[in-house]
Each structure stands twice: as structure tokens, then as C-alpha cells.
């Protein structure tokens, strides 16, 4: 059976791997910051918890149920932001947003996060890819619940 190029780009090995074996899955307790992300469209719900070391993200975890795109994106996010300063994490959030919407090329090196670019061809899935990042941002801003609607 043949898969289209778009579908292959969306469900790359890295995405499937992080979906099936999500990294940093769970809840930090105690945590310095936490935030919920909720996508009412598909019912995806996740919680991001993190510990700070000064201005740096020392540890970050996520927990929740979601589709392959939102789970993989959350898992990749935890790997990518660990050790980053709050300003660096914010810059990465902006880059990821640009990457998945395809509006403008990201300013920084995206590395493994490049696989998220596959959602560009699937407008309704962009929210899935960005959910965990919104939750991260909200946690860093000491927010609580965010939704992508």
C-alpha cells in the first residue's frame, strides 16, 4: 500500500517513536511550575510540570493522553527545553510555532524538532503539535490552564 509523501512527513519515525515511547512522561512532585493544556477539538489533555534552577529549566515532564502528534511534540519538547533559560525556551516556542504553521522560517536551529514541520500540510493538526508548547509557556509564565481553541 502506498502512503502519500505528506503522510510520510507527518508520521515520521521520530514522531512514532516518541508517541509509542514518550520521554519524560509523568509528573514532577514537587514542581516549581505546572500548567494544563487542553484541546477541546480532540479532547487532548496534558499537564506540564517543571523545576527551575535559577532561570534555567532543570527538569520538565508531561503527562496526559493525546494523539501521536501532540504526544510526540510534548515528548520532544521536554528533551529540547531541558537546561534552557526561560528566555531561550520562549524563543524556542516562537520557532516551533513558526515551524508548524509554516508562516516564517524559524530563526534558530531546530534539530530533531524539524519533524514537527510535517503538520504544515494538515491545518487542523497544527493545534495538536503546539499544545504542549503552549502549556510550557503558560507554566513558565506561572499560568494554569491553556487551551488551543
Amino acid at each position, binding site marked *: 500500500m502506498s502512503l502519500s509523501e505528506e*503522510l510520510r512527513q507527518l508520521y515520521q519515525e521520530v514522531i*512514532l517513536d516518541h508517541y509509542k515511547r514518550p520521554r519524560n512522561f509523568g509528573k514532577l512532585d514537587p514542581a516549581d511550575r505546572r500548567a494544563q493544556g487542553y484541546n477541546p477539538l*480532540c*479532547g487532548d489533555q496534558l499537564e506540564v510540570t517543571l523545576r527551575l534552577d535559577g532561570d534555567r529549566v532543570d527538569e520538565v515532564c508531561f503527562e496526559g*493522553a493525546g494523539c*501521536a502528534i501532540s504526544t510526540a511534540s510534548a515528548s520532544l519538547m521536554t528533551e529540547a527545553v531541558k537546561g534552557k533559560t526561560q528566555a531561550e525556551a520562549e524563543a524556542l516556542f516562537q520557532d516551533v510555532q513558526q515551524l508548524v504553521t509554516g508562516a516564517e522560517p524559524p530563526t534558530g536551529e531546530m534539530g530533531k524538532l524539524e519533524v514537527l514541520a510535517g503538520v504544515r500540510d494538515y491545518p487542523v493538526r497544527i493545534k*495538536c503539535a503546539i499544545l504542549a508548547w503552549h502549556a510550557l509557556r503558560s507554566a513558565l509564565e506561572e499560568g494554569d490552564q491553556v487551551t488551543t481553541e
Partner: protein
Amino acid sequence: MSEATVQLPPPAAKAFDVRKVRADFPILAQWIRERPVAFLDSAASAQKPRAVLDAERECYEEYYANVHRGVHHLSVRSTQAMEAARETAREFLGAPRVEEVIFVRGTTEGVNLVAATWGRTHVGEGDEVLITELEHHSNIVPWQMLCEDKGAVLRVAPIDDRGVVDMSAFADLVTERTKIVAVAHISNSLGTLNPVREMADLAHAVGAVVFVDGAQAAPHTPLDVEALGCDFYTFSGHKAFGPSGVGILWGKTALLEAMPPYQTGGEMILTVRFDKTEFNVIPHKFEAGTPSIAGAIGLGAALRYLMDLDRAGWAAHEAELLAETTRRLEARNDIRIIGTAPQKSALVSFVMDGVHAHDVGTILDEEGVAVRTGHHCAQPVMEHFGVAASVRASFALYNDMSDVDALMRGLDKVTEVFG
């Protein structure tokens, strides 16, 4: 030739023929991603037959004007056409009186109208409103808000693991405190057909009124509100192959006449003075403002289209699609069907092991298969079955076995991607 030899065959024109039905729906001829579209999302909104498109176009091209107010030719014709559509809806519902048929925006407005008018004047502190666990959000939230406003209690009859309402629990929940019972005729997320007559009899025994959300029933069979024994019935045009933005609320005359108006404005009044306004008679009392004129006319055409079908053949066709889809899904070992009521309409909700419904939906789309994924605006149902989201393949009269084949091919592709 003598008269005796002229034996006409029985009229074959009415026998249900899915190929002819498909040809009536222009949108189904298109291809998506190099495949013919397999539209399995009719429970969300159905496609429109040419008869509906023609009726709306004719209205705008030939006789459109505002209704019920002009003395001129076009207004008279528009009014006649809209009132003819009302009569068609009456016939479709099996309702006794045409004045009982109110044009609304859709099912959601039908529920809100009754909750805000009948509910506001009949439900008080300590009273109860009874719904079921399988309701769509639109048949939950208006009642919930009414109960909050009035200090009343919302009771919920539970479903079992097949998605069937537990009728003994239901009967226990119908008490002297019950003022209104609001139930879906058919569940949008499970396909369960509720025993409305039995529910209505229980409700009426304690003097409660019965409201039926017919959004999912109207697209599958002409109705008979008298046989159902309900007091209110509402459905959306767009799910019944008519235009979006228009629907029907039917209610018994005595109830409608005693209800305050829902919205106020033009059309629904007889006289307005600054000290007192006199409201119009039913149905106009509930039709404030200029209605969806062409929409109502299009809906009339849709209902006429349905009534002209061979009902038995249509029902058998949908039953066959449901049986075959269920059989083929059960033959796979990675699918769990949500909702296995013995009395069920042609839709299948399911989850796939290890793959989220949204991913299934995206990959099915690749095969040109349109399904709904998510919680289907029935979060309590999803919670009951312990899933956040499901895939729903819903069938309509225009689907055929090629659509079932496409669904199965798509599911094989999901397996290929997720391994």
C-alpha cells in the same frame, strides 16, 4: 391488443435504488486525494440532494421576497412556498396541526427555546428534569442552566455497557417531582435508538412532559410524533439533507399556546404599543424576525425527497451497511466498537488499539474517507466508556458498500503507519 393483455408491472420507480439516490447528490461525484469521496460523516451534517439545491435556487431566482408582510406578488409567492414547506414538515412529523410546526435554526435552538419558555414557566425549585447519559451536549446544557436558574435538579438515567438506557433506573427516576423528560430519539455518538414511547408513557403517568431531540432520527426515517407519544420534537434541517441554519420544533398546541415567546421582535407580534404588546398566534409567536426563507423552502424539499423514498428499502439498505461494517470491524482484532445496542441506527463509533482517533481520521482522509473523530459533543458518553475520543463512521441513504470498502482500506493503512 385487448385490454386484458395490458398488464403493467408494479410501479418500480419507488423501489430503493442506492445508485439512483447517489446520483441525486452532486457532491458525491467528486474525488478527494485521487479517490472518490467516501462520506461517512452524515451524522455531523448530511449532503444535499439536487431537489434541495433546486428549491433554494428557484426561490432566489424566481420569487424571493420577505414573507408574511408584503402585499406584492413576490412576497405572496415566498409566503406560500414557505408555508407549503411547513405543511410538508407537518406531514413528515405525522403531526396533527400545521400551526404546531415552528421553524427554528436547528435542534440546538429547539432545545433552548423549550428550556427557556416552557421550562422557565413550569420548572421551579426542587423540581426535576430527567435526561439520559447518552445525550448530546445540546440536550444537556440548556436543561442544566435551567435547573441552576430555578434551583431544580437535573437527573440522568444511566446507560449500560452496550449504550442502552437502563429502563428500570429510568423508571425509578421518573417521580412526582419530574416536570420534563428530555431524551434523544437516537444517540449521535452511539447510534442507540431510545424506546421513546415507553419513556413517554412513564413520564406522562406522573404528569411530566416529554421533549425529544430528533437530530439523528429525522435523517433515517419519516417520523410519527403521535405514535411516539411525545409533547415536543425537534430536529435540524442540515442533518436531514436540507440546508443548514434551519430546523423544526414541533409542540402540542395547548403547550405552545401557554408558553411565553422565546425571542421578541418582528413577525411574532400582533400589536405593539409602548404600554403593551400583543403576541401573534402560533407558530408565528415563536418566529421572531425574518426567518431563513429559502432555507425553510429547501428543508421542505428535503423532507419531500425523503417521504418519496421506498421506506422499507431505505431502512433495509442502512441496516445492511451497519451489519457489514460491524462484521468487518469485529473481524479485525484491533478495534473496539463503542455502542452495541440491539436497536441501533447506521453509525459505528470505535477506537483502535494504540492509535488515537485523530490520527485514524487523518489517515482515513488519505483514502478519501470522511469520518468524525473526537468526543462528538457527548463527553459524558466518552467518559462512560473510558475513552477521550472515538472515530465515528456514520452512514446515510446515499452510502454503499464501496464506502465500507474504503473505510476498511483506510484502517489497513493506519495499521501500516502505526505498525
